[in-house]
C-alpha cells in the first residue's frame, strides 16, 4: 500500500484481487438529427467511441468488458475466486519463494493454493500468479490468509503474511409448507403437496436455473411448475426467468408415497422425511451458485383414534333456517372397538338441532359410520361449524371437533330476491 508501507520493507509484494465476473460497459448515448446544429458531430463521436456497438451506437449495453470494480458480495453456494500475485518489486533476484493461500472459516481451514511447490527464483519485476477457486460452504466470516516466504540474495530468510476478511451472506430465503390431500375417506391417499417459497435476498437479479425436489426414498414426486400447452411444458412463471431482489417465487410439488411404503404403513404416521430442495442459480455473466435445503420433514396429520370428516355440507345457507350436513366417523385404532356418544354444543352462531348425548352404537376398528346432522345459524356471514364432541365410553375419553367446516350464512330475504 502506498500510504502505509510496512515497517519492514519486503522485496516481494503480495496483491490479491477477487475475480468476480467482469461487467459490460454501458455508455450514455447522446444523438441528434442531421438537421440539428451539431449535424453529424454527436453521431460521429459515438461511432468513434470504441465502447459503443458498431452499427447500433444508441444501444446502451456495449461489448467492452471491465474488471470488477469492488469486492462485491459473496453468497453461500457461490464460488470465491481470487487472483493472487506476488511481484518482485526489488532489483535483485529472490530465491525459494513459497506462496500459500489458506481460507479460514468458522469451522475449518482449507488450503486453496494450486500448488505448494517452491519457486526456485524470481527475477526483478517478475511475478508469480495464482488463481484460486473455492466453493463457499459456510455463512459468516471468512479470512483468506496468504503467506509468502522467500530467501534474499544475501541468504536471509524472509516471511510475511496478509489477511483478507470477507463475509459470506445468505442468498436465499426458503420457506416450505405442506398440504395434506383430503381424499375420499375410504382410504387416505397420503398425497402431500409441498409449497416452497424461495426469495432472492441478494441485491442483484438471479436467474433460477434449477429448482427441484429430490424426494426421499419413500416418495415419488411430481413437479407442478409447468403447464402443458400444445404438448409443451410452459413454466408457470412465464417469460420472467429471473428473480429480482426480494422477489419470491412459489414452487409446488406433489409427493406420493411409493406403493411399498403406502401398503406397509397404511396411514403414514408421525414424522416423515420428504426430501430436499436443490437450487441452482446464476447471476452476472453466468456466475453460478448452488444450495440445498436440509431434509424437509413433515408430520403426517394425526387423526387420533377417532376421525371425523365431512361428507356433505352446503356452501351457502339461509339465516335461521336449518340445514343438513353429513359426517363420517372412522375408528382409526387398530384393534379397539369403540362405543361412542355424540354431544352437540351450541356456539354463538351455530345451533344444533336434535338430541345431544345420543349413543352412536359400537364401531369396529377401521370401520366408519355416517351421521346426518341438522343445524342452523343465527348470525350472518362466514360461520364456522364447531361444537361436536365424541366420547368413547370405554376409555372415558372425549374427542372435540371444532372448526370442522365453514358455511356462508345469508339473509333469507336476499336469497329470495336474488
Amino acid at each position, binding site marked *: *500500500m502506498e500510504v502505509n508501507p*510496512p515497517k519492514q520493507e519486503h522485496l516481494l509484494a503480495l*496483491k490479491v*484481487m477477487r*475475480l468476480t465476473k*467482469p461487467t*459490460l460497459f454501458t*455508455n*450514455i*448515448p*447522446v*444523438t441528434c438529427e442531421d438537421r*440539428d446544429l*451539431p449535424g453529424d458531430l454527436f453521431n460521429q463521436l459515438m461511432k468513434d467511441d*470504441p465502447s459503443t*456497438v458498431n452499427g447500433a451506437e*444508441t*444501444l446502451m*449495453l456495449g461489448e*467492452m468488458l471491465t474488471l470488477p*470494480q*469492488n*469486492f*462485491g458480495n459473496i453468497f453461500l453456494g457461490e464460488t470465491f475466486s481470487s*487472483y493472487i*500475485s506476488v511481484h518482485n518489486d526489488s532489483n535483485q533476484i529472490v530465491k525459494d519463494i513459497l506462496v500459500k493461500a489458506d481460507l479460514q472459516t*468458522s*469451522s475449518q*481451514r482449507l488450503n486453496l493454493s494450486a500448488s505448494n511447490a517452491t519457486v526456485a527464483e524470481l527475477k526483478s519485476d517478475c*511475478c508469480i500468479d495464482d*488463481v484460486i477457486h473455492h466453493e463457499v*460452504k*459456510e*455463512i459468516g*466470516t471468512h*479470512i483468506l490468509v496468504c503467506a509468502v516466504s522467500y530467501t534474499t540474495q544475501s541468504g536471509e530468510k524472509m516471511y510475511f*503474511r*496478509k489477511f483478507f*476478511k470477507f*463475509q459470506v451472506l*445468505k*442468498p436465499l*430465503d*426458503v*420457506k416450505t409448507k405442506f398440504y395434506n390431500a383430503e381424499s375420499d375417506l375410504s382410504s387416505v391417499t397420503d398425497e402431500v403437496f409441498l409449497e416452497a417459497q424461495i426469495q432472492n435476498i441478494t441485491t442483484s*437479479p438471479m*436467474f433460477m*436455473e434449477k429448482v427441484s425436489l429430490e424426494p426421499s426414498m419413500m416418495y415419488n414426486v411430481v413437479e407442478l411448475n409447468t403447464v402443458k400447452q400444445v404438448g409443451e411444458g410452459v413454466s408457470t412463471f412465464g*417469460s420472467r426467468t429471473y428473480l429480482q431482489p426480494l422477489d419470491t417465487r412459489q414452487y409446488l410439488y406433489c409427493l406420493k408415497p411409493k406403493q411399498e411404503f403406502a401398503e406397509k404403513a397404511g396411514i403414514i404416521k408421525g414424522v416423515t422425511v420428504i426430501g430436499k430442495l436443490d437450487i441452482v442459480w446464476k*447471476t452476472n*455473466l*453466468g456466475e453460478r451458485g448452488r444450495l440445498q435445503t*436440509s*431434509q424437509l*420433514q413433515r408430520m403426517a*396429520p394425526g387423526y*387420533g383414534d377417532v*376421525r371425523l370428516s365431512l361428507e356433505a355440507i352446503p356452501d351457502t345457507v339461509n339465516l335461521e333456517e336449518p340445514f343438513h350436513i353429513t359426517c363420517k366417523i372412522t375408528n382409526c385404532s387398530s384393534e379397539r372397538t369403540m362405543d361412542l356418544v355424540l354431544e352437540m354444543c351450541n356456539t354463538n352462531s351455530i345451533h344444533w338441532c336434535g338430541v345431544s348425548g345420543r349413543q352412536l352404537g359400537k364401531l369396529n376398528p377401521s370401520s366408519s359410520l355416517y351421521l346426518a346432522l341438522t343445524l342452523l345459524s343465527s348470525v350472518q356471514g362466514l360461520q364456522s361449524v364447531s361444537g361436536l364432541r365424541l366420547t368413547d365410553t370405554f376409555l372415558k375419553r372425549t*374427542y372435540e371437533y371444532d372448526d370442522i*367446516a365453514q358455511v356462508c350464512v345469508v339473509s333469507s330475504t336476499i336469497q329470495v330476491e336474488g
Partner: protein
Amino acid sequence: MEHVEGSAQIIKEESVPGEVEGRHIIQHVTQEEQGQLLFHEETIDLGGDEFGSEENETVSEDSSNFIDKLNEHMMESVIISDSPNNSEDDAGELGCLQDIVEPAEDKSDHSLEQVLDKEEIVTLSNDSETDHDDTPKDISDMTSDSRASLKEELTQEETKDEPIFGNEGTIDSTLSEDKTNPEEQMSEISSSQSSKDDAIPVCTIFSQSNQANSQPQLFLHDGFEPQMVKSPSFSSASETSAKTPPQVVQPSPSLSKFFGDTVNTNSLASDFFDSFTTSTFISVSNPNAGTSVSEKLSSLSTPVGESSPDSADPSYSMGIERSESGVSTACLETCQSPKPFSQIQAVFAGSDDPFATALNMSEIDRRNDAWLPSEETRNVLISVATQQYSTVFIDKENLTMPGLKFDNIQGDAVKDLMLRFLGEQAAAKRQVLNANSVEQSFVGLKQLILWFVRLALLVKLSLFQNAEMEFEPFGNLDQPDLYYEYYPHVYPGRRGSMVPFSMRILHAELQQYLGNPQESLDRLHNMKTICSQILRNLEQGLAEDGSMNNITQENRHASVQLWRSRLGRVMYSMANCLLMMKDYVLAVDAYHSVIKYYPEQEPQLLSGIGRIFLQIGDIKMAEKYFQDVERVAQKLDGLQSKIMVLMNRAFLHLGQNNFAEAHRFFTEILRTEPTNAVANNNAAVCLLYLGKLKDSLRQLEGMVQQDPKHYLHESVLFNLTTMYELESSRSMQKKQSLLEAVAVKEGDSFNTQCLKLG
C-alpha cells in the same frame, strides 16, 4: 501493542512478519466464534463488527435491552444458519450448551477472571497453523436444530466450566420459555405441528390438556417453515439432520435488518480489499453504483448563483458557454413578463425578414418541426392566431424563461491531476478547447437549437444536474411560446415546434441519469403517443399535425420515414431506460420493437438482447439469441457480421465460465481485424482470469501505445490501472504515465476516476 484496534474496525492489510501475528489472528477468529469475549489488550478483533458495541454491556447483568438484542439476534440466526456440518457438529454444540447453562445458574459469578480463564483455553498453541476444527461455534450460527437440541440438553443440566459472555440473554429467554410450559418439553414440536395442520380445512383436534399453544406469537401464522439452505457438498452431513426433531417454526427476521447487516459486512469487506486492487470507479456502467453516481453528481454540480459571472475565467470556459450567455440575456428579456407583441417581435425580428421566413416554411420545416401540443397549449396558440393584433395575456408560468443556471468555470479534472502528480510544467502543456479556439460563427442565437447543443454537451460531460437545472424553465417542452404559431409576426404562417426533436429525447432521457427512470419513461411514452399520432395522421392522408394539407406522395413517404425513425429512436430510449431500471423482460420487448423500426440493426440488437440475458445469468436464452444472430448474419456478408458472430461466441463461453475458449474467440477476431478495440480489451481481460497478468498487461499496453487516440478509452484505462494495482506496489508511476498520455488526447468529458489516482 501494535495490533490493538477498535473492536469495530478491521485490520487493514496487517503484514507484520512472524508467528506472533498469526496467533493473534487465530485467537481472534476463535473469540469471535465464542461470542465476543472481553478482549485482552494484545488481541485484535477481526470479526466483532456487529457486536462491538455490545461488548461492554456484556458484563452488566440486568441489561434487558441487551437480552432483547440477543433474542433478536438468536431468532435471526436461526434463519440465517446454513452450514449443516456446523449445526450438527456435536462438539461445537456441546460447547455452546455448556456455556449457556452456566450463566443461567450463576450469572453473578461472571467476572473478568473467568473471561480471562476462558481466553486461555481459547488461545491456541504458538503454532498459528493449528487447525480449528473443534472451535466452538458462534451462537449466531446455530440452526433451529441445534436450538431444539439445546433445550433438550438443558434439562439434563450438563455443565462445564466454560462460560461465554454475551449468551446470557439467550439462555434467559430459553429458560423462561421452559418455565412457562412446564410439562411441554416436547410440546413445542407438536404445537408447531398443529400450526402446520391449520392449513387443512377439515381436521381433528385432540382434546389435550396442554393444547393451548404457550408461545403462539413465536410462530408464523402462514404456516410456512423457514428452511435452512446449505451447500450441497455437505450432503453427507445433512443426512444426519434427519435425526433431529423437526424444525420449529421460527419467526423470520425482519429483512431490513438482514440487509442492514449485508450492507455493513459488505462495506467492511470491500474496505479491506480496496487497498489492493479495487477502488470504486463511478461510472454508469456499474449497475450497483447507482446511488454513488448521483452523490458524485451532486458534488460535481455547482450551486446555483453562488459563483458570480465575473469569476468566469474565459480561458477555461467553453465557447458554447460564452456564446450562450448572450442568448440567455436575450431570452430573459423577452420572456420576463408578457409583453406586447410588438416588443417581442422587435427582439425576434433581428436581421431576419419575416416574409423570407414565411417563404422558408418549406416541406422540410413542416416535416421536421411538426409536434402535437397539449390541449391547453393548443388553445393558447389558436387564440394567438385568431387575435393576431391584440395582446394575448398569458400567465407568466406558462412561458418559457430559460437562462444559464451556472456560469462558473468548467474545471479540467485531468489538469488538476497533472498538477498534483506531474507538476506545474507538465500541467501547463495540457490544452483544452476554450473560447478562443472556437469560432464564434453562430449569429442567429435565438433558435432553440442552441439550447439543445448546450444541454446535449452538458449530458455528454455527465453534468446531469446542471443540465436538469437549465432544462427546468422549459417545463415539459410544451409551453405556447415554444411553438412558431406563438410568433405570427416573426414567423407568419409557420407552424410546429421550435424545440428540436433530439432535445425532447434528451429532455426525457436526462431523468434516468438523475435516478428518476420512471419520469424518463413517462416522458418517452408521451413522445411515443405523439409520434404514433403523427404517423396515423400521415396514413390518413392528413398533414403531420392533422391538418388537411395537400402533401405529395413523395413528401408523404419522406415524412413517414422520418417519423418512423423518430418513433424508433423513442423506443430505443425506452429500452435503454428499462435496461437501466433492470426491468429486463420489458427491456427485451422494447429492443424487439426497435428492430421493427431499424431493421438494419437487427443483428446488433439481437446480440444486445443476448448480452442482456447473459447479464441476468440466463445462458440458454442468450445462446438462443446468439443463434438467431448467426442466422441473420448468414444472409449478410462481410467482416462486420463475421466479427459479431465471433464476439457472441466468445461471450457465450464467458457465460459458461470458459475463459480459455472466450479468449480464443476474441483472439480470432483480432486475426481478421487486428485493431478491434473491444476484442483486444476483452482478450486481455480473459488473460487475467486465466492467471496471466503480465500477458494481459502486455496486450492492453500494446493496444494503447499503438493508437492512443483511439484506445485510450475509459474502460480500457480502468482495466489497465486495475491490473497495475494488482501487479505491483509501484503502480503509481505507471498510472502517472497513463495520465500523461490521457492529457494529450482526452477532453473535458474524460472520467478521471478510471485512472484511480485519487
